[in-house]
């Protein structure tokens, strides 16, 4: 369904007169099937978030392309409502001046004009992510981190996307809340048939929710493994991650 083909990206390093560039992504190629959860694991600074931004279309790749159903779309995938995103930092994921309702309505307003209908949908969406409708008029600073992340998930699914990029969406939550959100994500995946790009550096949660896992290093794909075969992974980074898991 979603195909990433030989995507490359580099950023200018130093001042405006410097020609030096830092290669952040190097010929990244993979595909994500419908309803699949694809994990992307890599060290900090390996370019995972950059990859996420390229797929969303906030930034353009230097070369290579992001295809949907084999076609290159005119508008970016996120603007066409095919892909949505949940970010890591829940503290700044919602405009502090917006209520929960305004936040969730924002992406919906672009596609539909009917505000009455959307209002009903917001309540429904809140229920989907396990929040009562009394949360409609709360401000983000009145919510806990887990609740904000639930609202963000509701906002992400509001446009009925085919795929959601979860960029460390649960990493800054504490462990018990993490499992709750993972459960929620799993349930939503089954009921709505959404695929996930689950970006993380926590191999445990990736193993819990993902069907396949991409091991990412220095802007390159080291290996793509099925979660069942994670034990037999070849790449050094994954082995190291697994080893640190064994200690627990």
């Amino acid at each position, binding site marked *: 369904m979603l195909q990433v083909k030989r995507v490359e990206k580099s950023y200018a390093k130093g001042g405006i007169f410097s020609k030096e560039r830092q290669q952040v992504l190097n010929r990244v190629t993979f595909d994500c099937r419908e309803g699949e959860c694809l994990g992307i694991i890599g060290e900090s600074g390996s370019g995972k978030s950059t990859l996420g931004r390229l797929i969303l279309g906030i930034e353009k790749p230097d070369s290579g392309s992001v295809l949907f159903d084999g076609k290159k779309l005119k508008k970016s995938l996120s603007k066409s409502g095919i892909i949505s995103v949940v970010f890591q930092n829940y503290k700044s*994921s919602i405009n502090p001046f917006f209520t929960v309702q305004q936040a969730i309505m924002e992406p919906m307003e672009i596609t539909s004009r009917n505000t009455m209908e959307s209002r009903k949908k917001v309540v429904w969406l809140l229920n989907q992510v396990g929040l009562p409708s009394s949360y409609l008029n709360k401000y983000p600073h009145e919510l806990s981190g887990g609740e904000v992340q639930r609202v963000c998930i509701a906002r992400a699914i509001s446009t009925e996307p085919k795929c959601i990029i979860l960029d460390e969406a649960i990493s800054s939550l504490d462990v018990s809340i993490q499992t709750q959100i993972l459960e929620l994500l799993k349930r939503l995946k089954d009921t709505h048939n959404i695929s996930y790009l689950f970006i993380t550096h926590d191999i445990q949660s990736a193993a819990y929710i993902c069907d396949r896992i991409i091991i990412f290093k220095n802007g390159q794909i080291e290996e793509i493994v099925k979660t069942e075969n994670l034990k037999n992974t070849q790449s050094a980074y994954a082995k190291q991650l697994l080893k640190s898991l064994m200690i627990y």
Partner: protein
Amino acid sequence: MRFLKSLFKDKLAASSLVVILAVIIIGVFAPVFAPHDPLEVNISKKYAGSSWEYLLGTDQLGRCVLSRLIYGIRPSILWVMAALMLSVLIGAVLGFIAGYFKGKVDALIMRVCDIMLSFPGYVMPIAFVGIFGVGLENILIAFIIMKWAWFTRVIRTSVMQYTELEYIQFAKAAGVNHFKIIRRHLIPVTLADIAVISSSSVCSMILQISGFSFLGLGVQAPAPEWGMMLNEARSVMFTRPELMLAPGIAIITVVFAFNFLSDSLQTIFDPKLMKSKKIRTEKVEA
């Protein structure tokens, strides 16, 4: 509304605002409030002390000090504020463009700002006055030309920092148009910064304009202006100190009011900061 409510909870901020508003109103309606014509010369009554007719006495030409003080609000405060607003407006527009769209536009605007900012602050107005002649207008124009670059710089930095925030990234990704993103997401959060920047720099501008008038480069006699009133009172500083006190206290009061207000605005505008302030005071009490 929430803004006004929290403003009035803060006593100091509220009273500063009241002072500033009162000064502005008195300045705008100066003919209503002033007991005399500020230019009316009455040599026979010169250096009169305070009386019912002349509440603050008269100056070396027998003009009513209170009336001159009231009319002096116009050049000293109102025109300064207008000049400030204009430069903030220019700075905001350019700052938003540079900070939001980045890239080449940003580089271009920033280089122009660099050029403007490389002139030392006092040289430009003096050079301007040297070319176009003395007068308040020329000083104000020179100020606008000088200051917009600085405001652009500061506002751009603030905008840039906010565009990195996740909710703006999300809005961009979802395809909300740029104009809407700026209006809904950026202006409300940067407004706090802009208010704080402009309210704190209004003080330095008031002082500088008064300074120029004190030096005789700004407002020309006989028009009343606070800085010039100070200058005129200088010669009788020891025999009639009250002539210096009136404009001096007026300047100090207004500058203080703006300073206090700018301090409080910072906390008031930010819902998160306000919460942390509450927590902080609770901690102190505990």
